[in-house]
């Protein structure tokens, strides 16, 4: 493929397969994919891998998912009842972290309890020794020295307390050491001050983290891109319904009304490929319970799946997804969680692709409501 500069890039092929290709390029890519077995194979390989991943069994421990609603309810209740207005804004994870820390401290205390007196003695003695050293240094080097030591002759004023003569270099060294010690003390004080400030800093960090998390959540809420004007949506969707997520979201934002406007995909005629496939099995353009025989649908399913998997369903994607949901439903029995998710996913995509006010969207939504878990 690398030797063939005319092949679209992987990004383009995948965007096309995912229904995310920009309208201007979509027709070009589609034409290429239709005529290029290499690109089709590449798309098929990826589609198969992803289908396999979706088929993979859940890894949740037995009973975990079933009990999750109780756990979540308890956490929400705990967060709501135990927190004041300020705390309510905090992430529950932080509460848990804090709980974990307390628990860890608690555990640590229990574990360390037998050694605690020794630790206390050692730390007290160390602290006392440090204080003594500092005091001695201050006394020796500070103004107190003059008060407590006998005043020697002027010449001997720089002699050490021991009375032994000291060379100027040694005296300088001693002063230097004292300075160093003083700096050390100051440094220690600074360290202590910093340590005392640490909880404050941590609180600031947590507040900052909360603020960021809050902003992230708000951004998630606003993550839907600004919608394009409706006229433009219809125009774009006519060219490529699946290519403009903005348009899809705009469509999703329109609440279904009693007399819904025609949906986006409803206005686009099925492609000849899709129409021919349906005609082969005697199926209507959009799934309709009254008109679709289960046998015909079961027979059509492999072809519908191939159409979807090959990534060339294009503007028929919503219709295809609705059919695939219904086909999967023929095999479904309540309790089959894997198939349940697959069917739900098909319906959700049908709603998203067709738009909730479209016929496809409305049918998919109604059918989804009746899907028994």
């Amino acid at each position, binding site marked *: 493929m690398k030797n063939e500069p005319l092949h679209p890039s*992987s*990004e383009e092929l*995948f*965007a096309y397969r*995912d229904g*995310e290709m920009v309208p201007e390029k979509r027709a070009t890519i589609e034409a290429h994919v239709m005529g290029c077995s290499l690109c089709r194979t590449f798309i098929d390989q*990826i589609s198969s*891998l*992803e289908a*396999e*991943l*979706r*088929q*993979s*069994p*859940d*890894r*949740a*421990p*037995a009973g*975990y*998912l079933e009990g*999750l*609603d109780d*756990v*979540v*309810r308890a*956490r*929400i*209740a705990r*967060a709501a009842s135990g927190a004041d207005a300020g705390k*309510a*804004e905090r*992430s*529950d*994870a932080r509460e*848990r972290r804090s709980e974990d820390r307390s628990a860890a401290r608690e555990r640590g205390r229990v574990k360390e309890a037998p050694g605690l007196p020794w630790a206390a003695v050692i730390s007290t003695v160390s602290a006392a020794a440090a204080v003594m050293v500092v005091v001695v240094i201050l006394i020796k080097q500070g103004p107190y020295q003059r008060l407590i030591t006998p005043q020697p002759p002027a010449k001997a004023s720089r002699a050490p307390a021991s009375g032994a003569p000291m060379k100027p270099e040694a005296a300088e060294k001693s002063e230097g050491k004292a300075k160093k010690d003083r700096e050390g003390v100051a440094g220690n004080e600074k360290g202590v001050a910093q340590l005392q400030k640490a909880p404050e800093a941590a609180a600031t960090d947590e507040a900052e983290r909360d603020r960021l*998390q809050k902003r*992230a*959540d708000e*951004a*998630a*809420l606003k*993550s*839907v891109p600004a919608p394009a004007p409706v006229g433009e949506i219809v125009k774009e969707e006519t060219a490529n319904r699946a290519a403009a*997520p*903005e348009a*899809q*979201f705009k469509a*999703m*934002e329109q*609440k279904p009304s009693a007399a819904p406007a025609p949906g986006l995909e409803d206005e686009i005629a099925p492609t000849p490929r899709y129409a021919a496939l349906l005609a082969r099995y005697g199926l209507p353009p959009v799934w309709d319970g009254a008109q679709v025989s289960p046998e015909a649908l079961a027979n059509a399913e492999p072809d519908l799946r191939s159409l979807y998997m090959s990534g060339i369903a294009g503007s028929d994607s919503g219709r295809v997804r609705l059919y695939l949901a219904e086909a999967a439903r023929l095999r479904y029995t309540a309790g089959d*969680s894997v198939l349940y*998710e697959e069917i739900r996913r098909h319906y*959700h995509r049908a709603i*998203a692709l067709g738009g909730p006010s479209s016929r496809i969207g409305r049918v998919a*939504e109604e059918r989804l*409501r009746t899907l*028994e*878990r």
Partner: protein
Amino acid sequence: MGEKKPDRSAVPDAEIVQLVLAGEIDAFDELVRRTRRPAYRLARRITRNHEDADDVVQESYVKAYRALPRFDSNRAFQPWFLTIVARSALSQIRSRARRATVPLDEPGADGTTLADRIAEAPLDPGTRQRLRDVEDALSSLPDEQRAILALRVDGDLPYAEIAAALEIPVGTVMSRLARAREALLEEVEKRRAARFRRSS
């Protein structure tokens, strides 16, 4: 305790959200039931271990609950919620010093392995082997690639939602997803080729 809870399985997401906002906190259970499976799958794929995935899922529900007043009821709940899950999961793996993973053949929290589950699944042997290959290959990918694939495959999220979840432009989603898919394919092919060599 003995009070029977109303069956809300057929009530649309938007109505459930309104019920919760009106004070029927129990209605939130229904949203949890509807989304717990994809949420856990997504969190598990990104974090690669049950403990972190559990943390992420619970934390995400609490966040979603708190953010519910700002939720646009005209939207579907699941994609919105999965965006929160993805963010929490990514934040979790970034903040974790350890990178605890549970490989395919290592028991999870309940003592079973994914390999066991695949073996128990009602699938033909060929499909089982393919599943093992692809799960193993996915697990070997870097966090960034695994996360974007999980968002696409398990979350079924469109590019715009993935971009919002990862806080990157849509163009970057396209290129990152393409690299991740290529890497996945390469890893799967490596495993299949190795097996083929061993068997022949």
